[in-house]
């Protein structure tokens, strides 16, 4: 299987939405210039599944200044589009049309949700940084008992006060937010799949619709021929005015079907343009719909989805974060120690003294019991959430796998039997018409049957590609929906000092 490395986090600086600057034309091969040169990674040997798997490789982007770098799936290998050559983008934008790979490469640059996803990772990492900081000391000047014994007071001097964070609350808080950052990174990976999946699905739709337009143009010609034939038959009494009118109705309906297919094609191209974030050329599309791809099995697909899904991994990371939250909140009642000290002058004794103060806030009434309860509740909720996500994935996968399987069975059968047979039937009718044994309406029937089966084939091809894209892409869609906030509703979150 051909693969391609898809770099999410090494994005070029963005300038917002734009047009492809005279690049995506077949003459300039400009799509290649947008693409960052990325080496192809070898396919992992996965015995039990033919589906491509995401693979974590070392991060290559600049890390925030943290003692513990966030680890995560910063670079993922996505399944390559079927039939896309390894150097697709570099050489793909040929006159035959823009390849899927070249379009995906443009999206990595221009789809804003990928930027949002990345910035959400940065934001969460910022929280982790913030949560690990020491509180600032308090500096002050103090005068006590001014006027005592007619002096300036018992104490005139400065002080410094520092809150000592006990029980390693800072470290635990930082771990908690790093866990959330990891979740955010999986969220970003999910977003990457959402974008790529949407692009592929629209690409298949656009490619299929382009083919369907050609097929429906033939259907219109068939209906025109039927009308002419019925009119010819009318002149020899073999049809009547009703049949002529009905043939006109059929022709109009066939024309409307064609227009609908053209609208569908244009809409698919426009939607694709929106997903990529640039205006794509109208005509230049490759067509990899027919390329063969290894078949998927239910067991392997399920294992792949539950084992590798960014949503599962995100939820797992959040679970870890919630576990740390409980730990953090359990430490909260352990009082911090406020230490205050400073030199001063005692004017009543006329000597230099030092003031010192240690303060604690004993957890007598507020033992943080409410927040602890909330943290436990959040942890339990997240456990259920993980389970829910897995079950939802299984449910959704069952539907998409059914569609995949049905479409794949159709595609194979149509390729091997249905289309060749329908074509042979049409050819045989033409031949016997030539021999004066067959009637023209029968020829038109066989012709129409061939076109209908061709259209069904294309529909099945698109469904097949669509469901395979979804299955290989963890069923993720929504390439223009804002990435989810890494902090789900109901979670303990922002305080002046995040914790």
């Amino acid at each position, binding site marked *: 299987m051909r693969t391609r490395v898809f770099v999410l986090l090494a994005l070029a600086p963005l300038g917002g939405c734009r047009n492809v600057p005279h690049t995506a034309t077949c003459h300039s091969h400009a799509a290649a210039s947008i693409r960052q040169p990325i080496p192809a990674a070898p396919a992992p040997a996965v015995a039990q599944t033919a589906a491509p798997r995401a693979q974590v490789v070392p991060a290559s982007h600049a890390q925030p200044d943290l003692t513990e770098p966030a680890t995560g799936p910063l670079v993922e290998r996505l399944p390559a589009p079927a039939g896309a050559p390894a150097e697709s983008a570099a050489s793909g934008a040929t006159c035959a049309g823009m390849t899927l790979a070249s379009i995906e490469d443009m999206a990595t640059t221009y789809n804003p949700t990928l930027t949002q996803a990345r910035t959400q990772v940065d934001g969460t990492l910022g929280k982790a940084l913030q949560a690990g900081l020491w509180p600032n000391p308090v500096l002050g000047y103090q005068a006590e008992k001014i006027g005592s014994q007619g002096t300036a007071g018992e104490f005139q001097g400065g002080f410094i006060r520092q809150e000592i964070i006990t029980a390693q609350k800072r470290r635990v808080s930082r771990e908690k937010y790093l866990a959330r950052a990891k979740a955010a990174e999986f969220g970003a990976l999910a977003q990457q799949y959402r974008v790529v999946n949407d692009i592929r699905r629209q690409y298949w739709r656009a490619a299929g619709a382009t083919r369907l337009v050609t097929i429906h143009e033939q259907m219109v010609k068939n209906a025109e021929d039927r009308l002419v034939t019925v009119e*010819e*038959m009318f002149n020899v009494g073999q049809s009547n005015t009703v049949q002529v009118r009905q043939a006109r109705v059929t022709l109009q309906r066939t024309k409307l079907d064609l227009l609908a297919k053209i609208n569908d094609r244009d809409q698919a191209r426009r939607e694709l343009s929106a997903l990529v974030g640039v205006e794509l050329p109208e005509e230049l599309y490759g067509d990899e719909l027919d390329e063969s791809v290894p078949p998927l099995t239910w067991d392997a697909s399920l294992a792949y989805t539950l084992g590798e899904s960014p949503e599962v991994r995100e939820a797992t990371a959040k679970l870890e974060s919630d576990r740390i939250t409980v730990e953090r909140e359990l430490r909260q009642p352990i009082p911090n120690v406020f230490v205050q000290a400073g030199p001063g002058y005692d004017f009543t004794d006329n000597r230099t003294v030092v003031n010192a103060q240690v303060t604690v806030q004993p957890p007598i009434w507020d033992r943080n019991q409410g927040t602890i309860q909330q943290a436990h509740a959040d942890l339990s909720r997240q456990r259920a959430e993980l389970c829910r996500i897995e079950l939802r994935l299984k449910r959704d996968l069952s539907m998409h796998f059914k569609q995949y399987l049905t479409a794949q069975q159709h595609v194979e059968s149509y390729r091997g039997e249905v289309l060749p047979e329908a074509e042979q039937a049409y050819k045989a009718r033409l031949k016997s018409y030539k021999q004066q044994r067959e009637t023209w309406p029968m020829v038109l029937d066989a012709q129409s049957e061939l076109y209908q089966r061709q259209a069904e084939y294309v529909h099945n091809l698109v469904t097949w590609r669509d469901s395979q894209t979804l299955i290989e892409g963890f069923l993720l869609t929504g390439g223009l929906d804002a990435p989810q906030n890494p902090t789900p509703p109901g979670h303990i979150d922002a305080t002046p000092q995040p914790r």
Partner: protein
Amino acid sequence: MQPGNTRREFLLLGGAAVAGAAGTTFAASDTQPPANVPPANVPPADAPVVREAPAEFGGFSRWKPTFGGPPTADHYLGKLVPGLRGLGLAPVPVEIPDLPKLPFKMVGGVKEFELRCTPVKREFLPGYPMDVWGFNDSMPGPLVEANQGDRVRFIVHNELPEPTSMHWHGLELPVSEDGVPGLTQNPIMPGKSYVYEFDLHQAGTFFYHSHMAMQEAFGMVGGFVIHPKVAFDPPVDRDFFLIFQNFHIAPNQTISDSMAMDWNWHTINGRSGPFTTPLVVRHGERVRVRLMNFSPMQHHPIHLHGHTFWITGHEGARIPPSAWVPRNNTLVGVAQATDFEFVAFNPGDWIFHCHMVHHMMNHMVQQVGPRIRDDSDVSDYQNQLATRPRVRADFTTDSGFRTPGYPQNMQHMHMGEEMMMKIMHRREVQGMRKMWHMGVHGLMTVLRVLPPELYDLVMNSDEMVMPGTVFDRIVKGDYAKDYQQ
């Protein structure tokens, strides 16, 4: 030799020499010669002339169109005008174009025939081998010829994958030999044989066929002629047997649909026009045609051009002359036969056909589509499967479409070069007009009445005869003047 002399010589010579010639002409068909077996009843070439044909026929001439009336006269329209071969002879053998005859052997004084019920691939037209069933690998089966008074035995082998039985249509025989499954016998199971044996006391036109209805529709029939000891008076010089059938064979199919109610392939002796072999006779001969209809459900109004024929018999028996009917078109119903007799006084190539328009060609199809469109050809469609040609929407500007009913011209089945070679290279069609086959389709054949020299040129020589030359000599040559006198 002048044509006039020829005719006079014929008259003077009487029948003997001519009868011998007539007996030998049959082998001329180069497409499907009959089985080389001793015919049941061939008079030897040197058979004694019992008595000569009368020289005078009242007002009737065997050489040109004449009335010969009044209607009560013996020779009215050639009614009782004998053939050229003389009177009192044994009958001439029957000629069955494009089909074999069934051989027999004498076993203990019984004529023993063997019939095998078999699947058959029959070439209805050159290049169109059709799947039907018949006998001895032939559809229709071979002709059985026997004589009145014979005892016959038929050993029937069932080589079909299903039971069958054999019926001897019209014969007055013991009920045990009648061949109706269940009613008179157990069916003959696949791979089994059955023996029928009976005496023939009748004379006339009969046939044999399977008594399973669908097998009948699928082709299982053959002719059966019982000759009288002495030819019926007036004797004929030529005696033909034609079996008319209908089949339904869909386009892109070779297997006949015996369940059909609509028929698109029409055969005479298993061939469709123009592949049917013409009946070639000498000018002045008295001719009999035994025409049998074995179509599943349609009757045939049979029409002969250029002559008035007398109906002298039907299946089962000859009609007494007092009941003969002169016609030029007569209806032959399903499983009926009619004996036509006429004197071939009118030289030329005469169409002999069923007059039902749907039987006058195979595969009548709607004349719509590219075949009637000026700028269109089916090849364009064959060459552009993925993106078919666009039809011209303004076809109605074709002048023909201003006339309601246009087009009525029915284009015939396409005939390739190979097909035409097979049709045009038979001796029987030599010298006919170049495009003669245009008018001969379906249930049609041609009666060729040829003056003796031309008959010999066509049938008894190896000469290549240019298309149209024989016809032109008849229409424009010496004969024309002579015959019209």
